[in-house]
């Protein structure tokens, strides 16, 4: 009779304490590695989406809205805004409006590149002061006209670091009455990745800052053009041409 087979000697196993050490070391490495990975990918950064705050400032205070620092100074209603009064009157008639509602503000590009000011940089309230109402097809959240006060340029592109005074204008009907205050709001923007198509853009956060604006004078928009000499005059060096 063969003796009952004894089990083959088992390979020596590491002691439980050694196994515990290896496993705990692996866990520590895993946790530290994952934590480092999350930190590197930006998961531990402060959430800057600004949820829930709705600020209110006085006119003349500078508001950082994202790509621009805006300082709203005054508002007014006026017939002419640009250097060409006739063009303004025609534009008003076309829009079926009586006057322009103008918001005056200082604009500073704080980004690292040249930017154009979004026409939605200033939003008018739903109820305009006095008996004013917006002319047809005009929205309170987008100005019809943006003008650089320095030269009347209609599509200003702002250079970083240069503050410029700007007029934003909406065609309106009616009368402001004696209204002296206008509550406008400035939407806030954040520079974020676009997930479709790549690239980045300044996107609205949904938050805005309210500004109570006093009425005031509309600054005169400068006209930089110089009187042109007779365009058909013969230049001295053209005399030999065409003979």
């Amino acid at each position, binding site marked *: 009779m063969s003796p009952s087979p004894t089990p*083959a000697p*088992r*390979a020596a*196993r*590491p002691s439980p304490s050694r*196994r515990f050490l*290896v496993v705990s070391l*692996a866990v520590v*490495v*895993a946790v530290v*590695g*994952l934590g*480092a*990975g*999350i930190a*590197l*990918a*930006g998961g531990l950064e402060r959430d800057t989406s600004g949820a829930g705050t709705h600020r209110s400032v006085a006119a003349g205070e500078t508001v950082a809205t994202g790509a621009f620092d805006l300082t709203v100074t005054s508002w007014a209603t006026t017939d002419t805004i640009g250097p060409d009064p006739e063009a303004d009157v025609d534009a008003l008639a076309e829009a079926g409006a009586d006057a322009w509602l103008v918001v005056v503000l200082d604009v500073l590009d704080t980004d*690292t*590149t*040249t930017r154009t000011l979004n026409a939605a940089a200033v939003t008018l309230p739903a109820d305009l002061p006095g008996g004013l109402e917006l002319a047809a097809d005009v929205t309170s959240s987008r100005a019809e006209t943006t003008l*650089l006060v*320095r*030269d009347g*340029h209609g*599509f*200003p*592109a702002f*250079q*970083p*670091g*240069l*503050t*410029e005074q700007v007029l934003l204008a909406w065609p309106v009907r009616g009368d402001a009455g004696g209204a002296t205050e206008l509550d406008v709001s400035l939407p806030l923007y954040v520079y974020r990745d676009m997930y479709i198509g*790549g*690239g*980045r*853009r300044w996107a609205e956060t949904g938050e805005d800052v309210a500004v109570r604006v006093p009425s005031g004078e509309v600054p005169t928009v*400068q006209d*930089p*053009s*110089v009187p*042109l000499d007779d365009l058909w005059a013969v230049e001295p060096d053209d005399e030999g041409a065409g003979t």
Partner: protein
Amino acid sequence: MTARPARRSGTVVTVLLLVVAVLVGAAVARVDTWWPVLTATTTRGDVGDEVTAGPLRVRVDGVRTGTLLVDPYSELTTGGVWVGVDMAVSGTQADAGPGSLQLRDAGGIGYTATTRTSNPLVYTARAPDVPEAGTAVFEVPAQALDGDLVLRVLSEVDDADGERPQAIAEISLGRVTGPAQDDVLEPVEVALVPGGWGG
């Protein structure tokens, strides 16, 4: 019979691979911010050099500044400084013109050529190897002149918001001296360069 130790070390290896995968993924997500985007299509040069960048050949001849910009139709003031870059542009294989002209200061801030005056060197296509010379006008704050300036000639589009592979010429302008109080900048009218590139 050695199955158990292999299984244990297999677990450790799996965990380690997981950690490495997460770390590498995070690094790859951030690598664009660690190294500036520099494509093989960026060509560098100095004032006076003929620099070829893909479809464009450019040469900067000089830089001038002023506090008042005078062109035939207007006199334009500024809160900063007018910088005029006298340069010649032509295509190489076909008609081409810059998609965007930009000055970059020592702080990395880019100033696109101004739209307050017509800037005919931008956008307009020039024939291959038939250079036309004019002045590209920029408006910058005075502090931009405190360091070296670089002219960036982008062949297709402004690249502030996206990385689009395109040919770019970067020409070092060095330190540009600011204007005296009443200096006037008059852009040179665009004209053919006599003798072409060799002239």
